[in-house]
């Protein structure tokens, strides 16, 4: 039942970062799809955060080159005002991935703390927060997000991340809680309790370090959820971003009617492909992580 079953090896009681990184890559290289996912993630991180430094941001429209199909000059064609699509793809990943990272961080933080504390404190506190999580899980998330965004209009990307994580924590919180409920029966937690080491010590020193793999998996999962939701909100025009951004390209494509214009195919298809490949890399990577951390499901 435990997704957090850690690889039990004597030499990992004191993990040295480099040693465990090599071990991790060794395990990963045995899983082709996981390796592809990992390479994909690295590729998109480089594309979004490093490539823009070297590629100048093209802002000026070019009326002589509207909706051009792919050519040697414009590898992915041009958009409705003649700007290079590939240039926008390079520039447009930063915001999406930043929001996803911040949202995943906030979601994982809220969920892990609430889940761990709920399980350890128990009683009314536990019942109340499990109840809240149940309610958050039941309401259709995107509809609530749309109504909240229409009312609150998040204007910067941190506000958007806050809105997204306010609904994303519930599922993970319940799983962390269940996980901690089993962990807290372990001897070392009992020992810490009998030494009266306090809740903070037990949560941060005893429980969470033993859930590292589990938390990493859910951090990546939270990223996929955050990308899904924020792209939806931007496509609907609910987040007044102005910079370059894959989802914003699709919003403009929609308002320009480019979906139904055959020559605009690459202008519409490129951002979709970028987002789908990013999501796919994350999912393949997380599948491999689960495989590595959970020997029961290990396929070879």
């Amino acid at each position: 039942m435990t997704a957090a079953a850690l690889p039990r090896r004597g030499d990992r009681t004191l993990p040295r970062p480099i040693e465990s990184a090599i071990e991790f890559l060794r395990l990963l290289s045995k899983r082709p799809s996981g390796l592809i996912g990992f390479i994909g993630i690295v590729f998109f991180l480089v594309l979004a955060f490093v490539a823009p430094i070297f590629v100048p941001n093209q802002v000026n429209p070019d009326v002589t080159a509207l909706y051009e199909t792919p050519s040697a000059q414009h590898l992915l064609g041009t958009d409705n005002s003649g700007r290079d699509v590939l240039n926008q793809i390079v520039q447009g990943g930063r915001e999406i991935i930043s929001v996803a990272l911040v949202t995943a961080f906030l979601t994982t933080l809220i969920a892990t703390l609430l889940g761990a504390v709920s399980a350890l404190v128990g009683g009314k506190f536990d019942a109340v927060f499990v109840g809240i999580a149940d309610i958050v899980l039941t309401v259709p998330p995107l509809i609530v997000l749309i109504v909240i965004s229409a009312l609150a209009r998040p204007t910067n990307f941190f506000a958007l991340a806050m809105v997204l994580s306010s609904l994303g924590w519930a599922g993970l919180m319940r799983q962390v809680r269940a996980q901690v409920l089993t962990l807290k029966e372990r001897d070392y937690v009992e020992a810490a309790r009998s030494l009266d080491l306090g809740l903070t010590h037990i949560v941060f020193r005893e429980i969470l370090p033993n859930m590292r793999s589990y938390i990493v998996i859910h951090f990546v999962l939270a990223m996929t959820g955050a990308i899904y939701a924020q792209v939806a909100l931007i496509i609907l025009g609910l987040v007044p971003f102005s910079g370059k951004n894959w989802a914003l390209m699709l919003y403009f494509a929609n308002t320009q009617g480019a979906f139904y214009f055959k020559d605009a195919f690459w202008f519409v298809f490129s951002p979709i492909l970028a987002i789908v490949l990013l999501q796919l890399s994350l999912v393949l990577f997380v599948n491999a992580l689960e495989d590595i951390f959970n020997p029961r499901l290990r396929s070879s």
Partner: protein
Amino acid sequence: MAATTPADAKMVAQQFPTTPRAGRARHILGYWRHPVAQAIFKAFLTVFVTTSITFFLIRLMPGNPIDIKIDELTKDGLMTYAEARSQAASLFSIDLDKPVLEQYLSFVGNLAHGNLGYSFVSQGTPVMGIVLAVLPWTLFSVGTGLLLSFSIGVFLGLFAAYNRNTKIDHILSLGGSIISAVPNYFIALLIVIVLGVELRWVPITQMRGATSPGIQPGFTPAFVGDVLFHAALPISVFFLSTLGHWILGMKSATINALEEDYVNAARARGLSDGRIMTAYVGRNAVLPLVTQLAITAGLAIGGSIIIEQYFVYQGVGLRLQAAVTQRDYPVMQGILLMVTLAVVLANLAADLLYSRLDPRIGRAGGATGT
């Protein structure tokens, strides 16, 4: 957040935590601790909390829609503040002169009577009528797509688990991962730009709307065929976007079930493999997935806001999108409440179905044996 992993499938196993024995008061508390009673209570609570938060957002937040509407009405100087205030109040069915608590109670009372206020844009049209005209189309397309993907996905997942580590298993598992990584609204958009515009295989313009203009509603083959023709694209999207989830979830649940003692016991008793697969393994593996149906429905309905826009299918999503652009707050509020109600009822139905399917759940006083 789309539950796409085996770990998520396991979460549902904890949906009904083992209830501690309640000691002397057990047979009284037994009814409260009964999962069915808890499920009904949870459904009520969810609707109540959503209603309250909606009221808070609409009425008490700074810069809330009522203030915005009053500003709008007084801006051109045709209306005094008092007039504007009373009109805004009547649009939302809220009496602004009463204390907040009474406003809240009357708001809840109105909702209980099915009065969701009036649309800003189409003056004098009750929100309830607007929502009821579009909700069935979305529930129909989401429901059909989900039931199809559930039955086929569960079958494929069972099949993959029984053929573990074969080529078919790898194709199904990888295919399931890939398709569940694609956001559902992109499946819709890809159908439009690839199959509709680029290849012209699908007549997307003729398939717009919920029905063809001028067709007579009724249980005639022509009407049913027309409804299915127009719903085909949304149904395909909901089918494809949820299929991977069921394949992966069922595969991992089946693998877990195969290791259970009762399966070994059944084998030892010499039962046929087919009987073990359907009555022992399959039945137990599918149980946790049933409770996920409602949550998945909620996710699908969320995606329908964009999906219906791309297909121009007149469901609740297209209407919500219009309400958001027109800032028609009563309609937004009404859609939010009615969709939540629909999902909560679906959840309740799934919980009740679960307790029917799993005899361990049906017993009062706990012993849910997870």
